[in-house]
């Protein structure tokens, strides 16, 4: 895995927000590393994250295509560039099927190539059990056709997102954690492109990293945010998935339990986390495992109990 440059979450979020048209900022929820980094490290110049993509979710689903079109056009006008890619570096046209269209991935302007790029995503439509989780939608811009994708469990990122001073909102850490937990009910062999890292290890390691940072902040501030995770997750599941909430809650811990029981996968999950969200902390495997025990006892088991 290529080591990305350390980024200040506040600076990146400010840059992204200022580049977005004012009228769509209210429809933007930043998710992923930047959202977490901003939530935990904003105001602390010594704390940085490493990421190559800034994930920008348009919500609600009904407005996502219009917002993505407007944002893409405005950023292109402002000299943002399509991310270089030998296969997906050029926009498609109206004859291309959606699965052959490139995603909207744009690098900010500047003399030097930015270490990160902005990726546009859509909030998912209403949940349909059994339908594929990943859905692609066409975006027709002034320079050609693209696709934006959505995943079922990204609906959780829309649940009571947190305001920022920049006018865009960020997803709650516990909702990003729950989306990752649900997305990976087992250790699958899917690899992150260009690496031998399992995608599930990255995403489930992210759950532990979010929990670690939440506990750390709780201790520092005398707060009890981590203890509120399970309750909020349960409410969000009911809001977003209705009658299926209990079923989803009951299986939320399966993938994480599997990773915690597999030393090799846990090591890999930690390694990826220490290269990303935990870049300025260098957490030990013992501490990572202890955090996993806390997540299981205080979040997963509580959530399972609520679902019963």
């Amino acid at each position: 895995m290529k080591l990305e440059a350390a980024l200040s979450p506040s600076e990146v979020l400010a840059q992204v927000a200022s580049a977005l048209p004012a009228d769509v900022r209210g429809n933007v929820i930043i998710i992923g590393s930047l959202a977490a980094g901003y939530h935990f490290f904003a105001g602390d110049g010594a704390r940085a994250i490493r990421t190559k993509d800034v994930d920008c979710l348009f919500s609600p689903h009904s407005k996502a295509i219009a917002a993505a079109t407007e944002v893409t056009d405005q950023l292109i006008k402002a000299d943002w560039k399509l991310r270089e890619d030998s296969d997906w570096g050029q926009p498609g046209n109206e004859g291309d099927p959606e699965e052959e269209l490139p995603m909207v991935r744009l690098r900010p302007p500047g003399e030097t190539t930015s270490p990160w790029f902005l990726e546009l995503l859509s909030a998912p439509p209403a949940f349909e059990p059994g339908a594929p989780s990943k859905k692609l939608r066409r975006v027709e811009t002034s320079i050609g056709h693209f696709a934006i994708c959505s995943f079922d469990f990204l609906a959780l990122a829309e649940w009571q997102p947190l305001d920022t001073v920049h006018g865009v909102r960020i997803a709650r850490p516990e909702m990003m954690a729950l989306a990752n937990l649900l997305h990976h009910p087992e250790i699958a062999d899917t690899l992150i492109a260009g690496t031998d890292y399992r995608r599930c290890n990255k995403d489930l390691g992210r759950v532990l990293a979010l929990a670690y940072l939440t506990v750390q902040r709780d201790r520092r501030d005398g707060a009890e945010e981590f203890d509120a995770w399970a309750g909020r997750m349960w409410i969000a599941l009911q809001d977003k998935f209705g009658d299926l909430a209990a079923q989803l809650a009951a299986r939320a811990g399966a993938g994480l339990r599997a990773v915690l029981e597999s030393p090799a996968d846990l090591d890999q999950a930690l390694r990826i986390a220490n290269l990303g969200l935990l870049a300025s902390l260098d957490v030990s495997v013992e501490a990572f495992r202890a955090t996993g025990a806390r997540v299981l006892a205080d979040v997963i088991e509580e959530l399972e109990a609520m679902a019963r």
Partner: protein
Amino acid sequence: MIGRSFTDDGLVSMHWSNPAGPDVLVEIRRTNTARDVREGLLALAYAVQSTSRPSTGVCVVVDSRLSSKRLTEELDRFRSIARPEVARSIFLVWAKTQGLFFIDGELPEHSNVFMQALQAAIHEEQANGRASRVTRQQVKAVLVERSLGGLPPVTLGELRRLTGTSYQTASAAFRELEQLGVVTGERDGPIPMHGLRPIALMKLAEEHALARKLMRYTDPTGESRTPSALASRLLSLRQKGVAGKAAISGVLGATRFFPDLDITAAPRLDISIYDGDFRFMSKLDAGLVAVDDPKRKATVVLHLQRDCRPAEMVAQEPDLAARLDCLADLEQMGLQAEARDFAHRLCNAAGRTP
């Protein structure tokens, strides 16, 4: 129907309700001394007299080195001095549990149901006895804690009832207290602990500390809750019915007894566990990890031990550990000046320091 120890403050081991005749009260003794056997017979006599239904009493002496002849003589002697109606209702049998199980001697009831209940009670008593044989140190702890709590002194007999210990152990505990100058050699009537002064108390606490099983927990994330926050969490668990026999000890316990005690902020949470059950730890903080290395900073330390608190104190403040536990913890932590101060205050409060 079988009830356990409900006739008179645990005077007997089993109460068997007989649908077809007098109930049977059973007192089980694992002893090698005639003195214990006599006391068992006497306890039964009292119990038989105090039940509302007609009852008989059986003293079962288990795996004793006393011969059957000697036990028969003890029963005959008891019957010769008791009132005839009481004498007729008291029986003495002996049981062997090593190898082939058998019970020998005259019983007032022979039904299969009763025999099965009796055998089960003997096995249960045996298991409990193994798990909780009372030591001299534990007897001393009970005495010291009563005294520190300002409760009236007890007789040797009362002490045996309180602790469930044998005559020899209770007597030996008093002898050791006598050597420390805490009690006099007098054994008739209640035995006051006039000599319980800070230095002796600290010695007793040191001994108390060594007799406990200790479990240390550390937080590998370095993000542990404060001891006070953990204590609040423990209390909240107790309210939910978890950790019923766990009590706050150490610095936090000591400052509950004396809020103005000149003591550092608690470096860790000490918890006294009185029933050996520490499963609540995963609820207290699942991230804590048990460690053997005494050099690693402990976030929580559990002290597994027998409860030396008087029932009066447990009823009043069930979540607060014994004073002696707290003092032992301070000593174990190396808080010597604080331990001395605490010991002085305890003795002063109990009215022992001249």
